[in-house]
C-alpha cells in the first residue's frame, strides 16, 4: 500500500518537474462572491425567512404556528430532541405522540423530527446542522418533516461568513431547501431520501 503511495507521488513529482514555474495561489477579497446588495441593511432573520421560501423551505417564528402547521399536515407523530422538549411540550396537544428517542427499526413511524440547528445562512436560505447540536443525525433526516430550531444570534449573513465559521465539528451539513430531484424528465419532486418539508423555527 505504501508502495502505491510512493508510486503516485513519484509520478506527480515527475509530471510537475518540467514546469518552469507553478501557478501562484490567487489572493482575492472573499467579498466578491457575496450578494452584498441584497443583504445590506436587512434584518437577518427576515432575510433568512424570505430566502428559505425561495428554495421551498418554511420559516416560522412561534411554536403555536409550528404546531398548527404540523396538525394541518396530519403529521402527529414524531421525534423531538430531549433537550428541546421541555420548552416545546406545553404547546403540543394530546393529539400528538412525541418520542424523545429515535428507534431506527421504525423509521417510517416518525412523521416529523425536531432538532437544533447550529446556525443558518440568510443569503442562501440555508439551515446549518452539525454533530454537536443535532441530537440524532437520523432524527433530522428520515422523517418527512424536519424542524430545525434556529437561534437568531446564530444566523450568518452569507456563505463566505459561514465557511469561515465552520469550526472543528466533523460533520457540518448545510440544508438549502427540502430534499429534491429533477431526475425524471426534469420535473421537480421534493422529498427523495431526506425531508420533503424543511422548516426553521427561528427563536
Amino acid at each position: 500500500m505504501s508502495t502505491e503511495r510512493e508510486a503516485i507521488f513519484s509520478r506527480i513529482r515527475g509530471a510537475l518537474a518540467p514546469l518552469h514555474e507553478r501557478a501562484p495561489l490567487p489572493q482575492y477579497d472573499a467579498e466578491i462572491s457575496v450578494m452584498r446588495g441584497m443583504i445590506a441593511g436587512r434584518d437577518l432573520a427576515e432575510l433568512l425567512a424570505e430566502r428559505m421560501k425561495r428554495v421551498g423551505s418554511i420559516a416560522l417564528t412561534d411554536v403555536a404556528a409550528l404546531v398548527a402547521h404540523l396538525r394541518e399536515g396530519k403529521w402527529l407523530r414524531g421525534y423531538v430532541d430531549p433537550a428541546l422538549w421541555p420548552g416545546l411540550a406545553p404547546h403540543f396537544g394530546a393529539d400528538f405522540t412525541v418520542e424523545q428517542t429515535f428507534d431506527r427499526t421504525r423509521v417510517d413511524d416518525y412523521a416529523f423530527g425536531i432538532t437544533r440547528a447550529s446556525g443558518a445562512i440568510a443569503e442562501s436560505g440555508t439551515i446549518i446542522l452539525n454533530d454537536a447540536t443535532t441530537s440524532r443525525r437520523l432524527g433530522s433526516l428520515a422523517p418527512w418533516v424536519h424542524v430545525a430550531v434556529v437561534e437568531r444570534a446564530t444566523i450568518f449573513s452569507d456563505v463566505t461568513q459561514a465557511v469561515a465559521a465552520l469550526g472543528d465539528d466533523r460533520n457540518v451539513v448545510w440544508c438549502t431547501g427540502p430534499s429534491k430531484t429533477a431526475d425524471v424528465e426534469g420535473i421537480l419532486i421534493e422529498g427523495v431520501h431526506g425531508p420533503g418539508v424543511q422548516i426553521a423555527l427561528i427563536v
Partner: protein
Amino acid sequence: MRFQQIDQFAAELKADTRASVYQSTKTTHEKRTKLLFDQFTDPNRLREIAGEIKQHAIENLDTYLPQVEAKLQAAGAQVHWASTAESACETVLRIMRARGATKMVKAKTMVSEEIELAHFLEKHGCEALETDLGEFIIQIDHDHPSHIVRPIIHKNRREIAQSFEREGLGAYNDDPGTITRRARHFLRHKYLAADVGLTGANFVSAESGRMVIVTNEGNSRFCLAATKCHIALIGIEKIVPRDRDLGLLLNLLGRSGTAQDLTVYTEFIGGPKSAAQPDGPEEMHVIFVDNGRTEVLASDCRDILRCIRCGACLNVCPVYRQASGHAYRSVYPGPVGAVLSPLLAGEKFPSLADLPKASSLCGACHEVCPVNIPIPDLLLRLRNKAKEEGVPSPGTPPMGAWALLATQPTVWKASLFGGKLMNHLPTKMIPVPALQAWADKRELPRWRGGEFRKWMKERKSRAGL
C-alpha cells in the same frame, strides 16, 4: 463512407431522446446564465479566480496531498492510495472483508463509475446499491449514465415506470412523484441494513482535511447517518488549498450545474462521527485514486484537472445536445469528456480519439466553465496528438487534392473553369456523398470562382498600372 463513431451514435439517436436532451440542457443553461448575471456584478471574474485556485492546487499536489493525508489521519480516518482502477476496487473490497461486510450503499461518485466498482463488488459477492435516484434507475436497467449531473436525462418516465414494475417496485405508474416515493421507501430500508456507505467528494481542503459532498436528494446524508463505516473514493485532483476557497467554489458549483444558489445538501466531513453522536460511521477510510490522472498532469492538457464536474459545458454544447451522452462511450461525456476520456483511456487513446474532433470549437464550453478551462484549446492539442500518433480519422474528406489545387497555379485555373461547369451539372453528380445529402434539399449558389482575379486585372488597367 464511414463516419466517426460519435457521429454514428448521434445519427442513430431516437428523435424523442434528442428532443428531451436538447430541451432540458437548454433550460438549465439559460437559468444558469440568468442567475449568475443577476446576482453577481462580475461573474466572469469569479470564474477566473476559481480557475486560478484550482490550477494552483493541481500544480502543487505534491505539497497539498501529504497535508490532507496528515489532517485526515489526525482526525481518525485511514488514508489509502490507489494507482489504478483495479487497485482502488481491491482496496474497497479489502476494507469490506476486514469488517465482514457484504452490503454497501453508494452515493453518486464519478470515480466509482470510472473504476466500475459496483460491478466488481457484485462479482465478489457484495451488494453495492446506488442510492441516487437516477443512478439507481441506471443500475436496475444495466444502463450507463448519459450526463454527469443528470444520469438519466436520456430516459422518459414511461421507460422508468416499466423498469420499476419489472423490479417489483409496484404496479406500473409513470407519475414522477410516485416513482420517487417508491424509491424513497425501498432505499431507506437498504441504508439501514447496509454496513458500509460509499461517497465521493467534490472538494477536499488541504488546510483542514475536510471534504465537501454536495447532493440534492440527501442520499449521501443517509449513507452517513445509517451505516457504521464510511469509504470516500476521491480523485487526487479534488484538492483546494484553503477552506475559504470552498466558499467561492460552492457559490459557482450549484449555479453552474443546476442553477441553484447552493445544492440542497452541502456536507463538510472531517472524520468519523464524534463520540457523542449516536448515528453515523465510527470508521472512515479515504481512498485517493490516480487512475490516469498523473498522466494527465504530465500532459499539456493538465488544465482539465481543474474540472469540478458541474455539467455546465454539457448543457451548453451544441454537439452534446444533438448526440446525447452515450455517443461519448465513456464515463465523462460532453466537452469535458471529449478532453478527459481520451486522456484517461491511456493506451486506448486511439479508440476515443474521435471525440476531440467532434467539435466546431465554438467556445461555449469555455465561456460557461466555472473554473475557466480553455476546453477548445485542449481539444486542438488532442487533435494534434491523434495526428502525431497516426490515428486514422474516418469521415474526414481527403485533403490531398486540395493541397495540389492550392499549390499549382495551372491546376487551380483549370479547376476554376471546371467550376463554371457546375452551373450546368445536376448536383447528384457531385462525387461527395456528404455534399449530395446537403444539396438534396438546397440550391447550390451560382459559381462565381475566378471573379476576383478578373476584377483585380480590370482595376489595375483602369488605374493605368
